[in-house]
């Protein structure tokens, strides 16, 4: 290689390292929160089930659940425009329904809002009185809306995802020894260890990190870049009709007609899909002569854009099926499917969960590396360094406490209290930001130990609260073979143990350093000691 080429490569690497450092740092704290809550969202229905311990039913067939739900909706909501029935599967365990009333004929009237969602007993169709909660939906929404008003949360999440993608690409270019350092992880070597941990968590799971970041960004691409559609379609609905094959929505004829039995319709759809389970039943204009029943397929395929079949609501005969998807729509559907992993069975879902944690570890170690690198130069801690250190504590050590507090609040807040779902969400943010605020009052090293310990304890308390306040504690669940609750308790304990290990490690580091006082380390040590006092 000539000297000029070598020089160009070196300069490219340097500029990429600069981009990597600063984009990674600026977006790092939000990305850490997005990764952690997004990872929890792999278990969105399971979290919701855990947060509604009252909801517990034996599994029923899809057609039986649909029949029971229709029997419940028929007397009360026959005049509504549309019924949405989310059928239970082995993950959700209960039927959810909501309806949308017919719009006011007055053109000046505001559009009709959907009625509140109900949870139904899948076999009987009777409404279940369960505690009000956002459940797994809260982490899922937070991970791309960041609890900010629409559309700012999604824009900020998209900006952070752009930073992440740039950081991944620039990181790969910066990293000189991807293969030589592939298996290298050395502990207790200060900055070297943080670099090893950052490299290993990034490189080993690189296919996952690149996939999850890119597909996450693409999921909202029509919102981030609406211009291609605006330039080509005067009416946005034309785009939807062309891309997804949605025809103009039919109007009611005004002649009342009985709804055909739903069970044979659901069975017919299952036959067409070779036994695959339907996920959603949408009934338009129930009780009208023009009623239709649309059945959407469950998420058993890589493509998240599910196939649909529409049947006549009065005769039960098949009217239309969603047309074969074009290449672009299939690509978009597969990307969304890869991101959400709804197709994944339990084994693959746990793999995705662990890989998500690896992503959070990559971001966390990257943030730690930034401070470790600058502390080592021996300069007194400058304002920027202190700020980053404090924000690292707030994100890495305090967010887990907030997430555990969300679970804990679910068990502690009385189940009938009005507005309790919002209180649960507030509990997460009060604990998260409250603990971060408290940590500001403590010296940095102690703050790390204490916040990690509080996070560990909060997680460890969740199974205890569950055992004391519900009849579905660990032993009871073990006896009844309720693996969801058993796994949830075990997961809480493993997370608590991991956080306690981190707290112990941070504590040991704090005690260890002054003993190693020697020439090269003295400046570092005095900096650390000053922090610790």
């Amino acid at each position, binding site marked *: 290689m000539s000297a000029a080429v070598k020089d160009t490569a070196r300069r490219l690497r340097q500029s990429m390292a600069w981009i990597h450092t600063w984009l990674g740092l600026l977006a790092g704290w939000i990305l850490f929160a997005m990764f952690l809550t997004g990872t929890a969202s792999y278990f969105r229905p399971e979290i919701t089930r855990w947060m509604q311990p009252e909801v517990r039913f034996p599994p029923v067939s899809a057609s039986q659940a649909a029949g029971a739900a229709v029997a419940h909706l028929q007397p009360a909501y026959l005049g509504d425009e549309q019924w949405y029935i989310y059928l239970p599967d082995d993950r959700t365990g209960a039927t959810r329904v909501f309806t949308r009333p017919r719009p006011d004929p007055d053109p000046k009237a505001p559009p009709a809002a959907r009625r509140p969602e109900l949870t139904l007993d899948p076999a009987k169709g009777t409404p279940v009185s369960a505690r009000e909660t956002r459940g797994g939906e809260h982490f899922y929404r937070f991970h791309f809306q960041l609890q900010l008003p629409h559309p700012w949360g999604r824009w900020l999440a998209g900006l952070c995802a752009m930073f992440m993608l740039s950081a991944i690409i620039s990181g790969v270019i910066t990293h000189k020894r991807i293969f030589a350092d592939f298996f290298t992880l050395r502990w207790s070597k200060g900055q070297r260890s943080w670099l090893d941990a950052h490299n290993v968590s990034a490189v080993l*799971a690189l296919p996952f990190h690149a996939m999850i970041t890119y597909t996450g960004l693409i999921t909202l691409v029509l919102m981030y870049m609406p211009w291609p559609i605006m330039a080509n379609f005067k009416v946005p609905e034309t785009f939807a009709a062309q891309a997804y094959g949605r025809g103009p929505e039919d109007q009611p004829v005004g002649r009342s007609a009985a709804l055909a039995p739903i069970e044979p319709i659901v069975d017919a759809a299952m036959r067409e899909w070779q036994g695959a389970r339907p996920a959603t039943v949408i009934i338009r204009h129930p009780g009208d002569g023009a009623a239709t029943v649309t059945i959407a397929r469950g998420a058993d395929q*890589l493509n998240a854009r599910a196939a649909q079949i529409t049947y006549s609501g009065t005769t039960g005969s098949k009217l239309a099926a969603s047309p074969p998807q074009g290449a672009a729509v299939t690509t978009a559907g597969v990307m969304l499917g890869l991101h959400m992993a709804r197709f994944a069975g339990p084994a693959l879902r746990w793999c995705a969960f662990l890989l998500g944690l*690896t992503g959070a570890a990559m971001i966390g170690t990257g943030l730690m590396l930034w401070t470790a690198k600058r502390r080592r130069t021996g300069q007194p801690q400058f304002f920027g360094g202190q700020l980053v250190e404090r924000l690292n504590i707030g994100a890495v050590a305090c967010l887990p406490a907030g997430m555990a507090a969300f679970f804990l609040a679910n068990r502690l807040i009385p189940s009938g209290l009005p507005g309790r779902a919002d209180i649960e969400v507030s509990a997460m943010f009060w604990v998260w930001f409250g603990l971060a605020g408290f940590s500001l009052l403590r010296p940095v090293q102690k703050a790390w130990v204490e916040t990690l310990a509080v996070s560990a304890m909060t997680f460890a308390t969740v199974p205890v609260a569950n055992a004391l306040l519900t009849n579905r504690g660990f032993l009871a669940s073990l006896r009844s073979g309720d693996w969801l609750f058993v796994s949830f308790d075990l997961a809480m304990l493993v997370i608590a143990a991991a956080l306690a290990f981190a707290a112990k490690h941070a504590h040991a580091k704090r005690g260890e350093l002054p003993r190693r006082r020697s020439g090269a380390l003295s400046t570092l040590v005095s900096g650390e000691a000053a922090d610790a006092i």
Partner: protein
Amino acid sequence: MPFEAGLYAYAGLACLATSMGRHRPRPGRVPLPHPQYARAIGATLLALAVLTAVRRLGPEQGIVAGVAQICLAAGLLVLLMSWRQRTALALALPAVALATLLAASA
């Protein structure tokens, strides 16, 4: 549980590690393949990992599951190697045996 892809991947990556001077353990009771052979065996086991996942889940989901399990196996191997290097590498043998057993019974 379809984890045989991850077990094959673990063994394959352990072979790749022993082919590298830095991670190659000093000769002991277990005979080590020559670095060149270790690399070839490692690559074969990684290919086998993806193939078993494809056989079980079909090409679309199999490739996704295979790659995911390779990534996780690599993470597990590196964590174990940083703690007990020899044991971590020696676990490759039971991993292959268990994976073959699982793949045969599937």
